[in-house]
Each structure stands twice: as structure tokens, then as C-alpha cells.
């Protein structure tokens, strides 16, 4: 056995000062960040009126409510609820389709490879960003002012807020498309519109279809909640039953929503794979 080699600590220390003596700033950074985060958390809890007694009272109230929810029971209103659920699905489907139809032309304007000018593109992008910055519920309130209470306001609210999201997603899909096919069309004498129709669309349409399906899925969720402000669908029933404290109906409605969302997830997942193959939605 050979003798273990002497370790020249001093030389190592001289060569790698960072490993042996990490500067105090590096050692303290993580604990300091955690401490700051916790301090802000505690400040928040105090500022937002959290108190143990209130929390305990609320919890016991919540436990009582949960007991009242069992068993879920629609009473005699099952047909109304089924109709409301259908309304919700309709809102999601129509809203998403409308949004996609309007977003497609606008997304062309926001794509770098179609509109190279930054000055033209910038306002379009900011416009889409500000639409996205406003929540669907706010759009629903605005549309209720315009077309009155009911599911139609919900359709328009979802259409507008998704218009912003789609505009961004579609333009990203277009920017990611392969330019070679577009150049091919141009080389054979095609106009700008031909380039878009035959060079770009075949590449981006499957991606777009996948995204639209995914949004129909996620909009089923959004459509359940816009009813809370009066824009139709199952959310309206849910909010009403919560306000009149009919807890058995509430739990039944929540179960209905969960089942419907799971079913839509399943169907749209199958459809998505059928349309674009086993490819992740970008």
C-alpha cells in the first residue's frame, strides 16, 4: 500500500480561494432572501387581518358547511342544471372559435417574419398585451353592460380575452415556421398572399388547431366562473345556490363541473392527438 499523499492545503487554498472562503455575501444571500420573504409574508398576514381566532372560527364554519354538503343532491332542479351546463359548454366553444377567427389575421400583423417593421408591430403587440392584461371576468362585466345579462355576454367576454392570448400564441407559431417554403413560393412568382396561404398556413395550421382545442378545454373552466357576475352558464346557478346557502345543491353543481371538465379534457386530448399527432402543444 502506498502512503497517502500529503495534501498541500495551503497551496489548494491559494489556488481556489472561493471554495475555501466563500465571501460573506454569497453565504448570507440565501438565508437573507428567505428571511425577507418570510418577513413580507408575516407583514401580509397582519395587514390582511389574519387572526388565529378568526381563522379557527372560519375553519369550524367551513367544516360545518362541508357536513351540510353531504350528500350532494340537485333537488328538483336537475334539468335546469343540465341546461346550464350545456350553456357553459356552448359559451366555451363559441367564444374560443370567435377568438381564433379574429386573432388569425391580427397575429399575422404581429409576426416578425411577415411585418418586419418594428414600428408597425409594436402597437399591435402592446394592444394584444393590454387585452390580455384584463381578466375575463372584467370583460364579462363590460359586455353585460352592452348586450345585457345572459350567456351571450359570456361568449363575447371569452372571445375578447382569448383574442389577446391567441394573437400572441399564433404570432409565435408563425415566427417559428420554416422560411424555406415561403421563399420557394416567392421564387416561383407567388404574391405575398400566396406566400402566406401556401407557404405558411400548411405549417402553422396544425399548431394553431392544437392550441385552439387546448383553449376550448381551459375555457370550459373560465366559462363556469363568468356566470358568477351574471354572464350565464352553470356559474350563475352555482353563485345563486351559494348565496342562498343551499349547500347540497352547491356540492352537486361542483361535482357536475368537475365531471364535465374531466370529460372535455379527455375528448380534446384524443382529438388533439388525432389532429397533430403525438406532439406537445407549443
Amino acid at each position, binding site marked *: 500500500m502506498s502512503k497517502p499523499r500529503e495534501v498541500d492545503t495551503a497551496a489548494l487554498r491559494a489556488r481556489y480561494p472561493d471554495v475555501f472562503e466563500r465571501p460573506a455575501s454569497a453565504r448570507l444571500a440565501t438565508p437573507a432572501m428567505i428571511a425577507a*420573504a418570510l418577513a*413580507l*409574508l408575516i407583514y*401580509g*398576514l397582519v*395587514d*390582511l*387581518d*389574519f387572526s388565529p381566532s*378568526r*381563522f379557527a372560527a*372560519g*375553519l369550524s*364554519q*367551513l367544516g360545518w*358547511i362541508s357536513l351540510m354538503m353531504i350528500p350532494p343532491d340537485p333537488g328538483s332542479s336537475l334539468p335546469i342544471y343540465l341546461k346550464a351546463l*350545456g*350553456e357553459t*359548454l*356552448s*359559451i366555451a*366553444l*363559441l367564444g374560443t*372559435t370567435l377568438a381564433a377567427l379574429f386573432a388569425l389575421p391580427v397575429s399575422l400583423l404581429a409576426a416578425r417574419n411577415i411585418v418586419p417593421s418594428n414600428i408597425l408591430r409594436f402597437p399591435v403587440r402592446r394592444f394584444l*398585451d*393590454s387585452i390580455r*392584461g*384584463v*381578466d375575463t*371576468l*372584467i370583460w364579462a*362585466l*363590460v*359586455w353585460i*353592460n*352592452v*348586450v*345585457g345579462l*345572459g*350567456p*351571450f355576454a*359570456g*361568449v*363575447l367576454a371569452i372571445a375578447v380575452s382569448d383574442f389577446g392570448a391567441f394573437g400572441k400564441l399564433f404570432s409565435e407559431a408563425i415566427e417559428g415556421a420554416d422560411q424555406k417554403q415561403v421563399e420557394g413560393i416567392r421564387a416561383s412568382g407567388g404574391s405575398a398572399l400566396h406566400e402566406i396561404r401556401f407557404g405558411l398556413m400548411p405549417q402553422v395550421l396544425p399548431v394553431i388547431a392544437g392550441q385552439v382545442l387546448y383553449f376550448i378545454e381551459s375555457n370550459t*373552466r373560465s366559462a*363556469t*366562473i363568468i356566470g*358568477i*357576475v351574471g354572464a*350565464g352558464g352553470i356559474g350563475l346557478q*352555482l*353563485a345563486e345556490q*351559494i348565496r342562498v*346557502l343551499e349547500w347540497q345543491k*352547491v356540492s352537486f353543481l*361542483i361535482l357536475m*363541473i*368537475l365531471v364535465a*371538465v*374531466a370529460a372535455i379534457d379527455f375528448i380534446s386530448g384524443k382529438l388533439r392527438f388525432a389532429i397533430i399527432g403525438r406532439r406537445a402543444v407549443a
Partner: protein
Amino acid sequence: MTLAVSILPEQQLAALNAAYRQAVTRKRLRLLFGVVLFATALVLAAIGAEVNLRTLFTYFGNFVSYFDRILTLDSGQRVWTDVGEWLWGWRKWLKMLGETLLISYVGTLTGAIFAFVLNFFAAENTSPGPWLRFVVRRLLEFARTVPGIVFALVFVIAFGLGPMAGVLAIAIHSTGALGKLFSEIVENADMKPVEGIRSTGASWLSCMRFAVVPQVTAGYASYALLRFEINVREASVMGFVGAGGIGQELVVAIRKFYYSDVSAILLTIIVTVFIIDITTGWLRSRLFGREAPT
């Protein structure tokens, strides 16, 4: 220059042409079938959602003029001609905005802490038992699928009006969403360090602490920041059901037709969301480089 295009004999060409046409026809038929199916679904949906195009056309002018109205002051002038008058309530609104941000911060952090505790039980590779995994997964799924605002509606009744209900609703929803994402990160983590730690006789807890956590914290922080961004939007509407934040002011302004206030509050919300988006985006790229999961 001669073109070297070989023309096939007539009968061979005919067979190929026929096969091509048949393939194209089949594809077109399938497309047509899909389009018809989709159109039928749309028409059914339109009937279900009580779409009334006449209402839309009659009132569409209202939609445009609504924006005209919210951009006009009571004195009849455009809002940007008198910014002081337009943003008259900025002190109150800034305070409410601060409350909104605080609600989303506390909600996100609480949710992230719960998700951190729960996700090791939900991940395939680290869960101590299949039964526990099943239960935790269903719990997270429930918390994720029920919309945050529904939780808020129930909590407002249980905990009383105010930001507390909003915080708890956001915390529960974030627990569900983050728990799933976190457990996916854990499932992608390298298991060799875990084997190394376990071979030294360490408990499950030490395996998690010294083998898994160092691999996943960056991803966790990235997702939590993204969630914070989403929760700021969510918290801005929590006030609609009385759960605190700027939404309260907004819903009052919309319902009572205080037009210029609506645009002023919307402006502050949009600006805040922009700033938060940009800051968290910068933070994430700064902390974890470009490849960080989004």
C-alpha cells in the same frame, strides 16, 4: 440545356394518377366531414348560448361607445386632458392595488409551501406508498379544478368578507396547480443521488432533503414566480365576490357607471400586471438562465 424529365408510359401514368386522385379525395372528404361536424357543433352551441346576432348588431355601437364613455370625464373632456381629475382617487387605488399584490403574494407563498410539502407524496418516484400517492393526487386535482373564485365565494361565507377569503382561495388553488407541476419536476429528477443517500442508511426524509431538493429548487422557484404572475390577475378580480383587493372598487365603478373611474382603475391594473410580468420574467431569466422551465 435539355430538360431531363422522363414521361412515363400512358397506362402506368393513368394508374398512378387515379391512385393520387383517390388519396386526395379521401383526404378532402375527411376534412369536409370534420368541417361539417364542427359547424353543427357551433350552430348547436349558438342556440344553447342564446346568440342573437340582431342584439349584437344593435348594441355593438354600445360596445364602442362604452370605451368612448369611459375615456370621457364628467366635464365632457377626454381623460388625458386632465390627468389629475382622471386619477383623482389614486391614493385609494394604489392602496387597494397594494392589497391585491399582498393577497397574491401571501396566497402564492402559502400555496407554494403546501405544494412543497405535498408534492413528494404525489410524485411517482418518491412517494412512500401508492395509497398515499393516490389520495394526495386526488386532493391536488380537486384543489386545481375548482376555480379559485368558487373557493372565494364559499370562503367569504365561512370567513367573512375581506381579503382573508381571497388569500385562502388563492392559496388553495395555487397548492393544486403548483403541487402538480412540482411533482412533475421531481419525477424528472435524477434518482442516482437518492440511491447514494439511501445506501448510507438515511431515512426517507434525509433522502428528500439531501438528494432531491438540491436538484429541484430552481425549477420550483421558477414555477412559483410564474404562478405569482397568474395570481396577480386572479387577485384583481377576487373583489368581485367581496374577497378583497382592487376588484371591489372596479365592480362598484362598473355597476354604478362611474365611467372615467373604470378606465382609471383598468389602467392601473394593466400597468401593474405589465410591471409584474416584466419583473418576474427578468427575475426568472436572471436566476435560472434561459433554459428555465416556463
